[in-house]
């Protein structure tokens, strides 16, 4: 039996992968899908460790091979492309040339393609043939947010594991094990919304959590702001940092979703528990259609930002169109 994998949650996937390794019936291509920070890459790395580890009970996490894998330096593991870049045809041709060569150290050669959905269409197509019938020592690991984001021809050549958000309980327990105090563990577990990777980062980085709180509070302020100059001003500030704008909008979608849930009297299921007191009056002041349309707007704006439109313009439009509520006297 294999050693425990360094993965939190996703037991059903790990169980199956272990079984495959045990029976020697590995697939030649895996596709892990799921939202950002859910653990796709970590899982790919764990799989690489399990296959390349030299200890009797892989993955040990201690041996040279395991350490090299976790540092992305193992000669039999390639991660293409670099973080944040898109896969290009040239890189695929490189891989095609490389793949025929036998592994240097272990029995396998692993090719990790994080964010396959960002690949250039030509590159994705160029990969098809290799992905279909690679040499026996090659194993591909692809990751993407959804299957729908990839060419169907790619998906059908892979064993797909759709990673799902973890239960809040699981994340909370993990956080407690990392010596996070109770109140913070509960808050982070809620805000993580099933994404263990985010929880881990938030636990280590006080700043991230503070920012996340701020984004939620910003949204509520915005709804109470009637003055359009102030709104435009906020939009301008947000547009200054496109990376953060994306994350802010993601946070806003969770706030709006919480408002929908509150509207239907389901306070136990909301994510932004820290804002509950403020969200309740806000929800009462808006109609369900207003909330729903605001949510759709935030999503549309988010997709615009991803499509690289003029961020300031998109955000200004959003800020002007979000509903307004009069602050009642306290």
């Amino acid at each position: 039996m294999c050693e425990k994998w360094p993965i939190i949650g996703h037991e059903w996937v790990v169980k199956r992968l272990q079984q495959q390794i045990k029976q020697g019936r590995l697939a030649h291509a895996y596709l892990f899908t799921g939202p950002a920070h859910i653990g796709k890459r970590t899982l790919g790395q764990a799989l690489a460790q399990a296959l390349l580890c030299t200890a009797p009970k892989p993955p040990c996490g201690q041996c040279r091979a395991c350490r090299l894998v976790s540092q992305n330096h193992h000669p039999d593991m390639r991660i293409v492309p670099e973080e944040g870049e898109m896969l290009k045809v040239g890189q695929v041709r490189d891989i095609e040339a490389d793949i025929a060569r036998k592994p240097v150290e272990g029995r396998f050669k692993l090719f990790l393609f994080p964010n396959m959905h960002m690949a250039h269409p030509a590159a994705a197509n160029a990969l098809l043939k290799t992905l279909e019938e690679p040499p026996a020592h090659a194993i591909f690991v692809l990751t993407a947010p959804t299957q729908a984001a990839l060419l169907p021809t790619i998906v059908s050549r892979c064993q797909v594991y759709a990673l799902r958000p973890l239960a809040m309980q699981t994340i909370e327990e993990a956080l407690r094990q990392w010596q996070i105090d109770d109140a913070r563990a509960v808050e982070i577990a809620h805000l993580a919304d099933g994404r263990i990777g985010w929880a881990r980062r938030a636990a280590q980085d006080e700043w991230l959590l503070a920012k996340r709180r701020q984004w939620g509070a910003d949204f509520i302020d915005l709804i109470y702001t009637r003055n359009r100059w102030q709104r435009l001003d906020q939009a301008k500030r947000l547009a200054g940092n496109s990376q953060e704008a994306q994350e802010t909008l993601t946070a806003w979608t969770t706030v709006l979703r919480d408002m929908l849930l509150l509207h239907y009297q389901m306070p136990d299921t909301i994510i932004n528990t820290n804002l509950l007191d403020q969200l309740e009056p806000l929800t009462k002041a808006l109609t369900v259609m207003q909330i729903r349309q605001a949510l759709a707007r935030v999503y549309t704006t988010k997709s615009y930002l991803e499509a690289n439109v003029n961020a300031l313009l998109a955000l200004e439009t959003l800020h002007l169109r979000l509903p307004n509520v009069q602050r009642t006297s306290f």
Partner: protein
Amino acid sequence: MAEQALYRKYRPQNFAEIVGQEHVTITLQNALREGRIAHAYLFSGPRGTGKTSAARILAKAVNCLNEDVAARPDNTCPLCVAVNEGRSLDLIEIDAASHTGVDNIREMIDRVNLMPSEGRYKVYVIDEVHMLSTSAFNALLKTLEEPPAHVIFILATTEPHKVLPTVLSRCQRFAFRRIPEGLIKQELRLIADREQIDAEDAALARIARYANGGMRDAVSLLDQLASSSSGQLTLQDVNEFLGAVTNEAMGVLVTALAERDTKKGLAQLNVLREQGVDMQQLAAQMVDYLRNLLLWKVGGETALPGGDDAYRQQLAEQAQHLATGQLSRLIRDFSSVRTDVRGGMEPHVAIELTFVDAANAANISTPTAPSKETTAKRATPHTAPPRTGRTLPPKSGKSVAKPPSAPAGTPVQLDENDPLTGLRRNWKMVGHLLRRQKLYRLQAGVNSSTPVRIEGQRLFIDFQNELSYNLATQEHRQVERAVQQIFGEAFKIVCLLQGQHEGVTIDTPAPQVEKVTPTQIKPDNDMSEIANDPLIKAALTTGGRIVKIHKKGNEETNG
């Protein structure tokens, strides 16, 4: 050692093994028997339906050494074996997706004239041919039209519409079809038996359905499940793996939809999400389920064979409570979840919104007589209006006016004595209709106009600015048509520009809001402050009016 995937191990090796494509295999076999082999074929069809397999089999068949033409390919002669082992020199497989350039094609053309090394024919299989660049296609044209007698081209693609028509016309075209579920299930059973995989029938049926006509998808899924689980492969296994939902859980969701109990629906969704159900898969299943309901409703029980009794009873029960129009709208909505997700929306949010919309659309639908099976208690409206969820949201600060619904084909009744009021009240609908016809500029114009007077069949419309006025004057026929569609009366439109009605008296039947022109603003502190706001100023100069001023409640506390 990674074992060969089952879909590679069980690739069909002769024509008989290709499942569900008889129209292709029989034609090809007949052609072979009569020695009428074309010099170029194009195999098109969805993924996993047997294109590449058929190409390889055809390549073997034309070169096979078996005496009996009907028995080719026999998979035992040296040439067939060479192909099966991937070392034949006369079968050249080109991956067009990674060799898209014109140089790759030129290189190939250069060698086309060389004679085959062993067999009678040299077979070029060009897979994913739609990826070739235009110049590569063009370079191929001449050779494809009149290749040497010893050459056969087989082009394979999932997207024939991307292939140049000049290429298409030079090939014999074979369209592969999605393989029916039943046949996929049979094949899975066959493979399971040979591989000694212990699998439940229901589990295989679920896999077959999930594969959606693609054999490769089905076989790899079976492979994946069998290799990663110990013991019998059950339906529960498959569901857990796919993140799929049982029919019972599905029933709860649909009942919530039928009863418009959004809370219940959202709660159930939340439970499923905690269980790790894949929300995109859920949307697909939802469409499937609703479609079954629709079939049941339209065609009765006989329309839908199969399924166990509990499931059938569930369908029968729910079919009573959902109207046909409602079902078809729900199916559309759940189908659009897919596009929403592609647009970056998280799947669970997309589905939740669909539930919210379902309840809301029902609220503004026009009730008609309940269908005869519908119980009086839960009278459901027959038809729901087109979805209005995506229309513009109300402007901030103002009260929410529901956009008037406009079910096509049912004209709004105008009061005979006072048609103008009805027209005004529903004037927005003209805009909505124009919007649906994609006449956005005209819609904008109509939205900034008001009907002011009716004289016989002439309808006077007052426009706020010159731009709209000009546009509407030019396109008055479109407006007339829209008005007729909505109100059922054929008016002739007369356009007026605000402030320039010469000789036309304007009826003002009970205006809803006091019109205040900028010059009439009282020298109130508030007013002047607002009128000085640069935004308002800009709005006023482009034809805006201050209609009402909301006073701020308390001083805002920002922070």
